[in-house]
């Protein structure tokens, strides 16, 4: 009989090892899944994890890694701060949409003005859009004790509907022959987030790296970071240490919203190009997996986002080459989170073989 014994301290070694084990377990079970779908599991795994990096057309896919990874990093960093403090913002997808709408709205208002300040203003508007959207669950939680999980999630559906309305009415391209969707920012140099499109480099990538460094310093070297960690691990102790919970909630949600909003803006002004009905592709939800897979640690998130970006790209290749359905990748990502959560048992508990004592 196996018995669980709580560790006095979470094991550091297991904490690092579990994400890797989870990835391996996902590959094994994912392989079985692909086999069940009638695909060769080894070819499928190779297509998803190897070909984008080292395959024949990797020169085309490698830049995509930055494009897909940057929004994941930006959003996951923001979410991880909240998750550490026990604040569950799961509506990043909505904040991402609202940031994109606000930023794109500013950009389109200036069109066709060619001035250096257009793009910075768009970034600020994007951050504010996401921030404002995250403040709704934040203020409701602080003022009325409303559950932030449910409110932030409801607001995702609201944001999607606003997106639909905007792309067919207010922000619609007046020269778009009646098709839904805004003007394309790739045709508007002053409002464009690309730095070097061939390399997949845009301002979102730069912002993501800055966010990682910022979060690392905040969590490890700053009093506020200590308060965030303390509130999550020992809420009572945090109260005694003089942490103001309301301020912390607003701060964590606000930061997460602003980062998600910026991610949305960088996406719309570069890789996506325009506001359209199908603009959001679920980065806000995948980022939740990224945050956990990265152990809520900024550097871990960077690695986890790279891996997730890889599965996105590999999944697309597998769709084209092997006819693997897009949903399989989504399931694959969900499975990864399952294994991670299950294996986390080893971080917090010791497995002991219990010998029945005879009396």
């Amino acid at each position: 009989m196996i018995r669980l014994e709580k560790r006095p301290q979470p094991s550091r070694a297991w904490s690092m090892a579990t994400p890797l084990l989870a990835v391996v377990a996902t590959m094994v079970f994912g392989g079985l899944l692909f086999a069940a779908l009638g695909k060769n599991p080894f070819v499928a795994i190779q297509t998803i994890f190897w070909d984008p990096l080292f395959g024949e057309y990797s020169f085309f896919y490698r830049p995509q890694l930055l494009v897909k990874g940057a929004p994941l990093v930006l959003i996951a960093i923001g979410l991880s701060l909240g998750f550490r403090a026990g604040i569950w913002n799961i509506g990043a997808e909505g904040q991402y949409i609202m940031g994109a709408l606000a930023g794109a709205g500013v950009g389109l208002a200036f069109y066709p003005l060619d001035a250096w300040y257009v793009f910075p203003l768009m970034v600020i508007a994007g951050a504010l859009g996401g921030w404002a959207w995250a403040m709704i669950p934040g203020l409701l939680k602080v003022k009325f004790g409303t559950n932030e999980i449910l409110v932030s999630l409801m607001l995702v559906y609201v944001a999607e509907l606003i997106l639909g309305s905007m792309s067919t009415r207010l922000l619609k391209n007046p020269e778009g022959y009646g098709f839904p969707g805004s003007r394309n920012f790739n045709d508007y140099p002053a409002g464009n987030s690309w730095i070097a499109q061939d390399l997949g480099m845009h301002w979102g990538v730069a912002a993501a790296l800055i966010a990682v460094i910022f979060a690392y310093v905040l969590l490890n070297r700053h009093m506020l970071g200590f308060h965030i960690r303390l509130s999550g691990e020992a809420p009572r102790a945090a109260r005694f240490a003089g942490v103001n919970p309301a301020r912390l909630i607003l701060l964590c949600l606000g930061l997460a919203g602003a980062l998600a909003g910026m991610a949305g803006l960088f996406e719309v002004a570069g890789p996506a190009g325009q506001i359209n009905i199908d603009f959001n592709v679920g980065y806000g939800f995948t980022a939740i997996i990224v945050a956990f897979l990265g152990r809520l640690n900024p550097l871990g998130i960077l690695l986890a986002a790279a891996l997730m970006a890889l599965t996105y790209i590999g999944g697309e290749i597998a769709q084209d080459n092997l006819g693997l359905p897009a949903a399989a990748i989504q399931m694959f990502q969900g499975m990864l989170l399952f294994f991670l959560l299950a294996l986390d048992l080893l971080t917090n508990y010791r497995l002991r073989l219990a010998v029945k004592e005879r009396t």
Partner: protein
Amino acid sequence: MDLSDIDPIKLIATLMVAATPLLLAAIGELVVEKAGVLNLGVEGMMITGAISGFAVAVETGSPWLGFLAAAAGGALLSVLFAILTQVALANHVASGLALTLFGLGLSALIGQSYGGQKPPPMAEVDLGPLNDLPVVGPILFGHDPILYLSLGLVAAVWAVLKYSRMGLVLRAVGENHDAAHALGYKVVRIRVLAILFGGACAGLGGAYISLIRVPQWTDGMTAGVGWIALALVVFASWKPWRVLAGAYLFGGVTVLQFNLQGVGIAIPVEYLSMSPYVITIIVLVLLSRDKSSAPGSLGRIFHASS
């Protein structure tokens, strides 16, 4: 625009249909939460139930088998949640989210070949002359059997929780798992059973959408009903009859906004479609001040150390 085009009797009858998925999912989640488990995977279990019910109904031609499969599918997915939270002692919130993400992917995968198909229709309960009664007839009679099942389920859950020994033990586990454990109740076993029940109910609710309400299959067709069900349990203060009232209120909002879209009121469609979500938030705000009725051990991890 002509508001008199909206027939109030028909409105109430369709409201009940619109509310049933929500009611089924919420009553299941109520039992789960009463046992002290917070399962945020309702949306995932619903959509899995929706596709497994749809697939089986289409393949066998029997909606009854479809609903059976939906309950089994929802319960099967909830086993994963039970393993994560009760055996691997994982965080309830994160596990529930994982369940939803996984369920959405799984359902889209299974549902690939079912787009555009029509499920076999389920016959309405024929009560003969009762159906022809004015006003009462179309409202109370002539619905499908699952709708009546959902009402019966609410009554059963209420009675079991309030009057039976089983209900008392379940509530004890939810209020204080350490005390229940000390009294010798099998906390983990009871919770796993509650989670399975919740999964089956959510699965039924999902299948109600794909087999009766819509009826067809599209990806992500539950569109947040699972999340609204979670909110509903909170603002029903964990009381079964209030869940019923709340579900019908929301059914009313949903149906009314559809009708308003139909008569061409001067509000854009998107803003009308938002109303169920916005109203959920508003009701949550109004009713969330009082948390005293929440089960004491809700969402806490139970580990018997000795």
